[in-house]
């Protein structure tokens, strides 16, 4: 049987921030667009659109990915975490508390990506060295803070 007669996959069934999601998506749909436009999760941002800035970072099965350059169908069967799933306004995640306490955000545009990348790091290494934090943040760009406060906040949240 020729594979060309097999229709392209189009069903996305995954969990997003702990909730089950089932959507029909085209193969060429990008995860960022599905999150922002169909699930109304605006935390992940379209910024450089070529996966170099980190503003669109979400976690898929705990690993950071650039949602702008990731097919939505790749998340099928997986757990997606966006910043909206990190904590609630009434119950902020320790990372979010640390970012606020340390002044690690100003305009906030890079913040969702920074938070999720930090979460992925701390889940893997609860006590990272400053060098390791800097290594993980490479490729997550911030125009406001100069990075120092972001690193401090992450180290504080770790301890």
């Amino acid at each position, binding site marked *: 049987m*020729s*594979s*060309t007669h*097999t229709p*392209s*996959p189009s069903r996305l069934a995954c969990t997003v921030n702990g909730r089950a999601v089932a959507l029909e998506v*085209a*193969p*060429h*749909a*990008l995860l960022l*667009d599905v999150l922002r436009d169909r699930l109304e999760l605006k935390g992940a941002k*379209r910024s450089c*659109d*070529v*996966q*170099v800035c*980190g503003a669109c*970072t979400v976690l*898929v099965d705990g*690993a*950071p*990915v*650039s949602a*702008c*350059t*990731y*097919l939505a*169908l790749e998340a099928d069967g997986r757990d997606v975490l966006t910043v909206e799933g990190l904590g609630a306004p009434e119950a902020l995640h320790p990372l979010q508390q640390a970012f606020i306490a340390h002044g690690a955000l100003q305009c906030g545009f890079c913040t969702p990506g920074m938070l999720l*990348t930090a979460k*992925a790091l701390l889940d893997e290494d609860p006590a990272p060295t400053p060098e390791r934090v800097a*290594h*993980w943040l*490479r*490729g*997550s760009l911030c125009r406001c803070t100069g990075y120092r406060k972001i690193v401090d906040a992450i180290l504080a949240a770790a301890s």
Partner: protein
Amino acid sequence: MSGLRPFALHRPRSVEEASRLLAEHGGDAMVYAGGTELLVLLKAGLARPGCLVDVKAVPSLASIEAGAGALRIGATARHRDVERSPAVRAACPLVADVARHVANVRVRSVGTVGGNLAFADPHSDLATVFLTLDGTVRLEAAGAARDVPLTDFVRGPYETSRRDDELLTEVRLALWPAGTAAAYLKFGVHERPTLGVAVALSPNGAPDRVGAARIAVGCVGPRPTRLPAVEAAARGLDAAELARRAGELGALAAEAVDPVADLHGAADYKRDMTRVFVQRALALAAARLAGRSPIVLHPHTVAV
């Protein structure tokens, strides 16, 4: 630039099926694994395939195995997998450490070794390092397989000798002999490295005397290259002599490369940086050959 043009997505379960799909669709199909290079190309409109052949469902392609003096990395192994693989760490720690520094953590989570080699962007860390391990890629199609040395596989920027119906299935690396001291320096401020130098010094007789040198420079020219003239000059030197003459060998390297001007810099600049970084990489490898582990701090440089 947001959004992709529509395409069909096929998920073959075997190399044969993948190859058949590629042959069937010809230039209208492109191989898709991590997509970290491909999707950027598609977003820019520079390629418009009608279908993508997703090879991640082919089970044999993700394996990483070491044995019989060789390390075999499957095409869909991700940079992250190579970074964390116990087999790679035991067989050749430098490869694991170079993988750890490819691009950024998101690209490492998703991008594959096979995709990196097959896309043949000149600014590639892995292609440079793999040249010092006499890397060979396996290309498979319609039941036939051929092994092509990396030097022959990468023909120029974005050009390889892979036929449209072939699938790159694995890269095979010949492990260095015991006692080899190696280093990889990469330099740059952009997302991709501006220059990468890999050095492997294998002893002969005395543990700190160079029996064989393997030196590769990448990112500077249309494709990564070994530097036979510099390798020959390093042969027979002991670590102290090599450290003293590193500058001279750096100058030799600068003459041997074929720099291309681009957004990373003018040709003259790249040629001069080649001189500087080959010198630094040789100095670091020589120190390691002598049993030392110096900490290397140069601006915008990752020393592996």
